[in-house]
C-alpha cells in the first residue's frame, strides 16, 4: 500500500476505535479539537524542519506529491505538500495523536491514575487566561 492509502485507512481505524470500540468519543469533544489545533501548528513547524532540511525524504510513488532529494528539495506549499511535508503527514499525525489520546482517556476511564487531575493553572497563568 502507498503512504497515501495507509494514512486514509489509519484515519478510519482510529475514528472507529474512538467512536465504537473504546467509546472514548474524544472526537466529539471540544477539549480534543482545541488541543489538536495547537498540536497541528507545532507539527507543521517541526515537521517542516525535518522535511525542509531533507532529514526525512519521501518516495514520490508513495505520496500524492513528487519525491525529493538533495538536488530537488521539496516545495513549501503545493505539489501535495504543506510546509515542506507531504500532506499525508497530517493524517499520519492525526492517527498518532488520536490513538494516543484514546488510550490515555480510556485508561483514565477504567481507573488507571485518574488522579491527580490536571489543573488548576498557576496563579500567573490564571491571570493571563482571564484577561483574554
Amino acid at each position: 500500500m502507498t503512504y497515501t492509502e495507509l494514512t486514509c485507512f489509519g484515519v478510519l481505524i482510529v475514528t472507529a476505535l474512538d467512536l465504537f470500540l473504546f467509546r472514548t468519543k474524544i472526537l466529539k469533544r471540544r477539549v480534543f479539537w482545541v488541543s489538536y489545533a495547537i498540536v497541528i501548528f507545532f507539527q507543521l513547524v517541526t515537521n517542516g524542519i525535518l522535511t525542509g532540511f531533507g532529514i526525512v525524504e519521501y518516495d514520490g510513488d508513495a505520496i500524492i506529491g513528487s519525491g525529493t532529494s538533495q538536488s530537488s528539495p521539496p516545495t513549501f506549499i503545493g505539489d501535495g505538500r504543506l510546509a515542506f511535508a507531504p500532506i499525508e503527514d497530517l493524517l499520519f499525525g492525526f492517527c498518532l495523536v488520536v490513538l494516543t489520546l484514546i488510550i490515555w482517556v480510556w485508561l483514565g476511564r477504567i481507573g488507571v491514575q485518574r488522579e491527580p487531575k490536571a489543573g488548576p493553572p498557576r496563579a500567573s497563568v490564571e491571570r493571563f487566561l482571564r484577561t483574554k
Partner: protein
Amino acid sequence: MSKFAYLSVLLACLLGTAWLEYFLRTKVYRRIIRLTLTVAPVLVVFSIWDAYAIAQGHWTFDPRFITGVTLIAKIPLDEILFFIVIPICAILSFEAVRSARNWEAGDEDTK
C-alpha cells in the same frame, strides 16, 4: 547540522511542552504509570508502520542528520524516540487545554 539534528528537534518538542507540567499543572509526568501504559502500545503500532514504510521505501533518512543507531527492523533510534516524544507532547497539550478551560474529556469520576 549534524547527526544530532533529528534528536535536536525531538528535544525541542520535549522542552517546548515541559513548562505545561509546571504552569498548567498538567500532572502528566506525575501519572507515569498511565503515561507509560499509553505510550507503549502506540510505540508498538507505529514502529510496525514505520518498519513497513522503511521496507517499502516510503521514506528514507539522510544519514548525516540521524544518530545512525538502529535497534530493530532498520528503524533509526531517532524514529523510535519520535513515537515516544510526540505522544507525550500530545497528552501534555490535551491536559493543558483541559486545565486552562476546565472542559470534560470523558475520564472524570462519574459518581
